[in-house]
């Protein structure tokens, strides 16, 4: 009997040793509070949750960076309070989780994702189809999304491709849940505009088919449609007919939704700025922004435009096919560093997943720093959180740890810009949605 007990203990020890969920960090294991009344503390309808940490990265836009020895109060999935331990009184009914030396930071935000769905979109039929919705194609909780979640990515903009000028509408999603309804942050999440390069499909049709004309004409039609509705809403009269193809422009005109623009190379980004911003007055952000576009980052900064840079992260000296620009014949030019050198401040990062796997979003920030981005004022961490969130128009909901925002929180072993550090837990809307201690470590 004694022997069997010993053997069982040994076996258990062996299993624990073998299992990846055991002994993953030197810090004591995280103690997740028990459910109260069947609901997780912090989640919608549950009691409150207080998170205590030695370092809380707030990542406020142009605001505070970090709080040392701080507390976050979460209730009903929303951040109720955040501040230094000595300033915050934890209400008696709140459950407490002390994360020790681990860091707390906002969930990462990805504005260029192609893996949250089933690749079921065909946006290649017309050169412009602003009515096509990526939301029809979402596959909540698929493997690639869960890998991204393990890398700390909690919000994504799932978008159509760049094979046509106007590819359709993206959808903003949470990554931690298993149903579309719980995942949706906003639909429509964006309108996808693609310029030059890909929509030309230079090796097959259609080539450079008057695409600025095409974009301008499409956008003008959409704006005209939106103006008809605006006139009706203001003055009444005959109610216009709803046309799903143009509905998105009502949201764009109200600046509820932004255009994510596949744009790279100097003259192309210049066209985006002059056409979409200056001429048509629609909100957009630079997506990609690679090759030599850093040279006009000053122009973008004047107009307070956001840049979500990647997946290319360097502009190397090259003699190869990508000699379109010849922008840096003499050096390895970091893309983000180039923007920063021109005074550009709204620097975000993307992966264009699966071009770079979703879980490696943080590496884009690390590479930016390696190739010259000065990481003062937490530029790299903000570029993973609040900057892309604001670029997509959800900076009021996610991207930083501020009162009233969604409780999308990462518990990490350190600064997530460093690839050596990892995510020990992900909380979304106050619920634990990734817990390596229980489900095994994915990333």
């Amino acid at each position, binding site marked *: 009997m004694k022997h069997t007990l010993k053997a069982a203990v040994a076996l258990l020890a062996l299993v624990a040793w073998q*299992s*990846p969920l055991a002994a993953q960090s030197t810090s004591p294991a995280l103690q997740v509070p028990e459910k109260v009344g069947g609901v997780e503390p912090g989640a919608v309808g549950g009691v409150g949750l207080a998170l205590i940490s030695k370092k809380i990265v707030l990542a406020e836009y142009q605001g505070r960076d*970090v709080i040392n020895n701080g507390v976050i109060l979460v209730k009903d999935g929303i951040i109720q309070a955040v501040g230094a331990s000595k*300033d915050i009184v934890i209400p008696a009914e709140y459950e407490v989780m002390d994360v020790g030396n681990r860091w707390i930071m906002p969930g990462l935000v990805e504005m260029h994702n192609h893996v949250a769905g089933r690749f079921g979109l065909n946006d290649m039929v017309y050169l412009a189809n602003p009515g096509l919705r990526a939301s029809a194609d979402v596959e909540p909780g698929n493997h690639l999304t869960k890998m991204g979640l393990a890398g700390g990515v909690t919000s994504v903009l799932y978008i159509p491709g760049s094979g046509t000028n106007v590819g359709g509408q993206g959808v903003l999603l949470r990554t931690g849940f298993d149903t579309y309804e719980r995942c949706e942050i906003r639909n429509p999440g964006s309108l996808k505009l693609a310029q030059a390069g890909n929509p030309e499909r230079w090796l097959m049709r259609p080539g450079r088919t008057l695409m600025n004309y095409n974009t301008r004409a499409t956008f003008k039609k959409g704006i005209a449609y939106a103006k008809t509705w605006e006139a009706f809403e203001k003055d009444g009269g005959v109610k216009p007919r709803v046309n799903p193809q143009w509905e998105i422009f009502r949201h764009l005109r109200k600046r509820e939704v932004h255009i994510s623009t596949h744009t790279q190379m100097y003259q192309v980004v210049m066209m985006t700025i002059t056409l979409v911003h200056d001429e048509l007055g629609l909100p957009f952000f630079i997506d990609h922004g690679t090759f030599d576009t850093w040279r006009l980052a000053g122009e973008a900064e004047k107009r307070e435009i956001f840049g979500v840079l990647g997946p290319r*992260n360097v502009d190397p000296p090259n003699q190869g096919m*990508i000699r379109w620009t010849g922008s840096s014949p003499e050096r390895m030019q970091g893309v983000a560093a180039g923007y920063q050198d021109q005074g550009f401040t709204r620097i975000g990062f993307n992966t264009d997943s699966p071009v770079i*796997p979703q879980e490696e979003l943080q590496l884009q920030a690390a590479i930016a720093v390696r190739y*010259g981005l000065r990481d003062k004022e937490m530029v790299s961490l903000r570029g993973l959180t609040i900057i892309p969130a604001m670029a997509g128009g959800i900076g009021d909901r996610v991207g930083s740890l501020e009162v009233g925002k969604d409780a999308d929180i990462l518990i990490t072993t350190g600064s997530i810009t460093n690839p*050596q550090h990892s995510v020990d837990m992900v909380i979304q809307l106050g619920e634990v949605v990734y817990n390596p201690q229980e489900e095994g470590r994915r990333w």
Partner: protein
Amino acid sequence: MKSSIFNTGLLAALLLGLGLPAFAMASAATPGASFVIEDEKEEAKDEESDEDEDKTRWYAVVGGDFHTGTGAVLKNATMLCKDGKIVELGYDVWIPEDAEVLDATGFRVYPGIVAIASTGLFGGGSDVTNTVDPYSQGMLLGLASGITSAVQGSEIAKLKRGSIDDLVMGSNFFQTMRYRSSTPSGKQELRQKLDEAAAYLRTLRAWRADRSKDKGKEPKATGIDMGLVAVLAGEKRAIFREDNRAGLLDIANLCMRYGFRPVIQGGREAWTVADELGRAGATVILTPRDRRAKDQSLIREGGTSIENAKILHASGVQVAVRSMSTGNNSMGGIAGRDVIHLPISASFAMRGGLSEQAALDSITIVPARLAGVDHRIGTLEVGKDADCVITDGNILNYATFVQWAIVDGAMVYDKQAEMYYAHIRPRPDDQLAPEARVDAGEEVEEMTGIDGEPIVKDAEEGEGDETPKEEEGEKEKSKED
């Protein structure tokens, strides 16, 4: 530009085909590096007396913190090299008057990285000796990333910029074996050949040990696979490409039965059979960022794990890290995944819990052992080749740059003398200036060590004027408070 790969398969193929791999390597013949070009050497020989030909070549690296790779860190030490070999490493080292001296004060010195798989670093084809371009962009970028030796094809060679002498250190050190359950007959065949090879080896050894005069002729090797004999005799390592748990178990059993130590390339599910691989004495060449979902039809654990390297190492398996792409496709614009970012690949193993020392080993001494050249490279030790890199911080940190690279006791790369990286955090002329000793990455680590202990211990030396904003934030906060 890559985002349209979702639109049509054809377009995807075209973009992938054209977009990423095929950037011609520009040959970067950048003068100014401090080596002697062959022609000049010839001229020098003509002019100077014969005595100079035999002149001892001294090179000294003075004042750096030597991370030797043996576990020892010698702070502010000196390394003296004679004719390309390390002859002294320590303190109070006598330096000959005619030695070339590099002042590395405030910097770190590491053994040169050994890439266990590479393409394009030598600027030529598969035959390094006859096709090397010692001025190629690939070689320069390799050295800039810390690589001083690399395996290409079946050879291991040095990145000796400006020289074509004594590049190749070894070749054909691996014997490829296939032992897969998908071809049971192949497994049977391999076992039979191994039996034959083992029998032959026994006969041969008995014959060699026999001192009698009438011992007869050497046993015939007809039909014997001499590659397998070399493996059984311990002269070569057997390499298997295997990712699956079942296949890995088969290999471990095979190797224990025949008494040789396997090298596994891939090993995605190796963490699930780490003990078995440890008992078989395996070395695994893995890519920490590899990723494959678990086969949901199986109950047992499977798929990739970021903890693969850590778990294997804890079970006594030696781990070598290989980059996701063995080429140099940063030149396509996506940096961080190829052979010139090998330390970043290794740092993903650290993300999974591998210790810093083991992560350094995985790109230095372990690959050197695999290639059978660990007596020459892989660590900084007296008697070994003088191949080292001098960095501005922890070599495994993403922000660290190689400042100088030294191969065979001669400088072959100087960051500030080449066009590629000189503009990024340039090295001030005065190396003792505080800025020169500030290592951004070090500071990040210092702050982020999970157990409150800075990973890097020489913080007081690295302390500069630049304070990271997080700390400024703290100060501001405390002011507010």
